[in-house]
């Protein structure tokens, strides 16, 4: 499921274009999705695994350390300070956070029913509860806690305004956490939203027509990147993974074949050792 023509108009967006360029993509699901559905965004040709990118973060700042908040690590350069104010969250990773908004609608006889997308529960528990912490201080007012810092250069709004819910705001915003868990490969996908199954009688997503509304903020065209949106269900061993299956079947057959060949060879040639004339 690739973004095609409808979004081409947005290719040249910049970070702070207001209002955001929006586009809509229509697609059809051939089969209905029975269990919980996971919605991913995918980026390609995006080097989240580049050394300079990977190290460009300050984990103690993200862990809520107050001194690091105001004095981020040098690793964050050049996204360490902006206009003499420390950036929170600092570094290139945070700065380049994916900020498109995706909305999914089911089109049923020309009526668009929005589908509820759940934005919590997409990050690892350890990340959300251990690794990422908001700065501590008097009160829970994030605005006050982030006093003295400035937003990352590319962000439209500061970190304490990522979400309205207090347990999903600031550094512990799950979208942010997911983004901060850098990908190993230049083509990757990240979990965006969950679509929960409502009851046992209806599939989560019925087969049929859908449309995806995209608030296109995130420029990828300059480096020839691509965006994707993926819907997937999962089994006990995660998402659909054809590689592993094929590999197992191949390796299994090779092993079997090799076993037969070796058995044959052993029967034919192996016996001559048993007489064991050892030259001396």
């Amino acid at each position: 499921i690739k973004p095609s023509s409808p979004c081409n108009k947005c290719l040249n967006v910049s970070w702070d274009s207001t209002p955001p360029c929006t586009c809509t993509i229509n697609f059809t699901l051939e089969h209905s999705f029975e269990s919980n559905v996971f919605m991913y965004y995918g980026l390609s040709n995006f080097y989240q695994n580049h050394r300079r990118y990977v190290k460009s973060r300050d984990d103690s700042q993200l862990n809520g350390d107050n001194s690091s908040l105001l004095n981020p690590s040098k690793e964050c350069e050049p996204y360490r300070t902006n206009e003499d104010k420390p950036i929170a969250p600092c570094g290139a990773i945070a700065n380049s956070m994916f900020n498109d908004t995706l909305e999914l609608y089911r089109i049923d006889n020309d009526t668009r029913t929005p589908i509820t997308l759940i934005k919590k529960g997409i990050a690892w528990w350890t990340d959300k509860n251990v690794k990422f912490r908001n700065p501590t201080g008097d009160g829970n007012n994030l605005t006050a806690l982030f006093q003295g810092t400035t937003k990352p250069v590319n962000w439209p709004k500061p970190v304490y305004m990522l979400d309205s819910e207090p347990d999903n705001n600031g550094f512990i915003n799950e979208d942010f956490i997911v983004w901060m868990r850098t990908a190993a490969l230049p083509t990757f996908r990240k979990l965006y939203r969950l679509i929960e199954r409502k009851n046992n009688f209806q599939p989560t997503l019925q087969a049929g027509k859908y449309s995806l509304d995209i608030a296109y903020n995130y420029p990828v065209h300059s480096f020839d990147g691509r965006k994707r949106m993926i819907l997937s269900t999962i089994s006990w061993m995660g998402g659909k993974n054809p590689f592993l299956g094929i590999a197992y079947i191949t390796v299994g057959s090779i092993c079997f074949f090799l076993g037969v060949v070796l058995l044959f060879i052993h029967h034919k040639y192996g016996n001559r050792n048993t007489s064991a004339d050892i030259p001396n």
Partner: protein
Amino acid sequence: MGVTERCVAEEERRVRANAREYNEKFQYASNCIKTSKYNIVTFLPVNLFEQFQEVANTYFLFLLILQLIPQISSLSWFTTIVPLVLVLTITAVKDATDDYFRHKSDNQVNNRQSQVLISGVLQQEQWMNVRVGDIIKLENNQFVAADLLLLSSSEPHGLCYIETAELDGETNMKVRQAIPVTAELGDTSQLACFDGEVICEPPNNKLDKFGGTLYWKENKYPLSNQNMLLRGCVLRNTEWCFGLVIFAGPDTKLMQNSGRTKFKRTSIDRLMNTLVLWIFGFLVCMGVILAIGNAIWEHEVGVCFQIYLPWDEGVHSAFFSGFLSFWSYIIILNTVVPISLYVSVEVIRLGHSYFINWDKKMYCAKRRTPAEARTTTLNEELGQVEYIFSDKTGTLTQNIMVFSKCSVNGHSYGDVQDMLGHKAELGERPEPVDFSFNPLADPRFQFWDPSLLEAVKLGDLHVHEFFRLLSLCHTVMSEEKSEGELLYKAQSPDEGALVTAARNFGFVFRSRTPKTITVHELGQAITYQLLAILDFNNIRKRMSVIVRSPEGKIRLYCKGADTILLERLHHINQDLTSITTDHLNEYAGEGLRTLVLAYKDLEESYYKDWSERLHRAGSASEAREDHLARLYDEVEHDMMLLGATAIEDKLQQGVPETIAILTLANIKIWVLTGDKQETAVNIGYSCKMLTDDMAEVFVVTGHTVLEVREELRKAREKMMDASRSVCNGFYQEKLSSKLTSVLEAIAGEYALVINGHSLAHALEADMEAEFLETACACKAVICCRVTPLQKAQVVELVKKYKKAVTLAIGDGANDVSMIKTAHIGVGISGQEGIQAVLASDYSFSQFKFLQRLLLVHGRWSYLRMCKFLCYFFYKNFAFTMVHFWFGFFCGFSAQTVYDQYFITLYNIVYTSLPVLAMGVFDQDVPEQRSMEYPKLYEPGQLNLLFNKREFFICIAQGIYTSILMFFIPYGVFADATRDDGAQLADYQSFAVTVATSLVIVVSVQIGLDTGFWTAINHFFIWGSLAAYFTILFTMHSDSLFRMFPNQFRFVGNAQNTLAQPTVWLTIALTTVVCIMPVVAFRFLKLDLKPELSDTVRYTQLVRKKQKTQHRCMRHAGRVGSRRSGYAFSHQEGFGELIMSGKNMRLSSLALSSFAPRPNASWIDTLRKKKGCEGSSAGSPSGAADKTLKV
């Protein structure tokens, strides 16, 4: 060694006796020696400086500096510093321990006591306080404290006897004499006034040279080595002596000689260094490739990607970025040249050395000496030895002669017989003959044939005469400490054995004076008048005495080499001669040294005439020696044969078996001995180096270059002829074009015996190649009469041309040069001093242990080291190359695949111990098998187990593994998600997955490589895996992260990732795919092309199943052939010493009646003899006639 650090080299040395102030201004070294390298203050800087001279350490220091540059640093600095510090610490601790022991031994030597004459009084002083110019008193059996000028001694003429075993390994006593003017300074008061000044050469390391002058009372006296007592000697048979210290401490010849031994490297070491260089080149190549990749990437992609990831400050072009990335990649790929390699190799070698030291089967209970690996760095080379150079005396033989058999009047005695009269096999000896009837018998003497004693008791005249001869015709001195406790001092052990035999059979040589010999014949003391000793020399090969019996009959007794003596017998002896010859052949066939005995009655008148002429000849000034030789020749004629003796030059235990097995293992053994050709050849036969199956034994004895060349050429031609007759025509032509290959392919077995003087020519530059070819084509090579230097030259020659590993084994100081030259030097810790042991790399007390050292320890060491190296390179390539592949997917940015802690710990924790355990404990076949099948030794000689080819196979396997290690997870992770829907392909999960599969794969691989499982192997392998997971979970734990959030970024990763079934499926898949080809390949190899060791192992398995006993190796019986040779190993000229009576103690009874005329010249004569000894031209004694005049 602490060489004195005077700025100006000493040109001459001036020493004034009893004048410390005067001598002090020259600042001569004190007698304090210092062999230690560090003290507490200097240890750290000096040791670190030394360690950073190692290329590897400097390399890692360089890496460390690179890592401190932030633009380049792709890894934290601690990934390098942790292993580096570890390595430096281990080495430093080892150095410190070594030095501590050196300090201890220095202190012990420095604190020895000696008596120094200070202001007229003898005072006890420690050695280190002895100064140049002091006069020291030495007592019997004391070590000489410094190089001394002998001033006077308790013995007449200022003589003094020393043993130089520590210096040159020779155990025989040497005589030193004070110069006559000082010899009279007998007591301390006289010595205190002695103020002579010595001007002599500066300190040097020549043991046998000294030049100087003594100025005293306005006279000049020349000094030579004959006046010197060198440090390290022991004073013997001399109550006391005084000496003037000339050289002290580090200036002494002993210390000047004990230079630091050259550091030996094994061939694996050299190969390893080459390979490390190659790997380094490979590393640079990879760095360049990735740097170019980086430049291109930054130019094509990175430029556009700048909106998210701007370039670093100061980086303005893709090219410069590529340059930086080159260094970054050098850092992260540096693990292909693992620093732990060197440490691990050292640890393994140390382990192997301990195995050698602890080996109970190489422990000599009799001497209480275990084997000792004195050098710990050569062990694996023991598994590659191709040439062994062995000394003879003390190494192959015990240097103990045993009277073993004799033939008297055509009857042979001495066979060990069992009850039925059959010749008994070895090992089932009956009781030895009981000599209890004879109170003077030597209890250590054993003889196994009772019939000889019966013949003596029955009064067989021939037998009596036989033993009478043995008790009379010799130059042995006797010493009777108490009644009946006789001690013989023989110059050659042969003579000692013969006289001892006579003693036990009732013909006891009791004492001698210059004119008489007293013998107890069957309890009855008879004194013979000694008329003449016709001494032994090289040409005569016999010695005779002329005695007058109490009845007045004059009789000549002669013993000598059979070849010489049989020609000089009276013709009526013909029948007896033929029988005796048969016996001689039989004895020679058993490797015994034979000697023919004969006598002749002389008419009184004839003797008078003869002795008259002898006297005249002796006083003749010209051609005296020729005259004497002719006279000797004349009288030793038409003798009556008495019989023959056979002396066993007792081999060390198990020598023939050892040599046989080593030969089977394709090791060529060369014997280099200072002995005579006959002796050497005899020993060659008795220890089965030479056998009668050999096609021919070439003897090279030429005296000129041409002769030697001719002889060598003939030998080669003969061998070639023989092989030509074997080869067919076509082959032959091809072969003859290449001389070397012909000689390699020689059919039949040959042996080469070469004499020292021929060897000197053969070793000249233009002939050495020729000589080597000939010698290498022979199965056995014996070089006799070689000097220590020649021994080293021969070894050097083989080293130079053959590129083979050489091992030299010897026990004396004359072997030191060869031991130091050879790749491996082995010292036999025997009686001949400790010089050889000190110079050696390995030492033990029996030649037979060599078999175990090579075939068991050496083989295993080599095997283990090879396996270790293969695996080590494999695991590091598998580990490191993943970064390379990852480079293509991360913009060549030098991002590591793994967590930095994993990189730090991989080599030092996760994978080091299992491979160390394998390197230390592994064995392919048990020890008995490797002794049983010496052929198993061959892979080592051919260097099959680790060479460049094997190396590339390991590397290829490593790279293959790394590819799978990266691409399988890559394939899986590309679009996998976790079971809770979150993405799986994040960098940290990927890192954990790859690292885990890597650790598992290399652990499985080490499991496959380990051939011999011990509890330790299990413990280390499972322990490493456990350690990996423990450390992983600890590093990824919440608490550590909370303490150092910036250091432990992988928090929660292990729990989250390793809980995923997908991850485990990936790990399993990777493991199977990495290991499967290895298993399949090994299986195929085992089936289709098994190595000998595989076969042996397999047979063993089968045998174990069948529970059959393994067969014993049968000893082949001996076949005799005619070889005989009698070697008097003592120096000639001893006879005259006896006749002159000089060496008799004053306490000796006889001297009161036979007071000899003082004859000061005998010492000179003796000295001259010693000088001549060794030169081939035999110089008949000039003093023998003088004795006759007495």
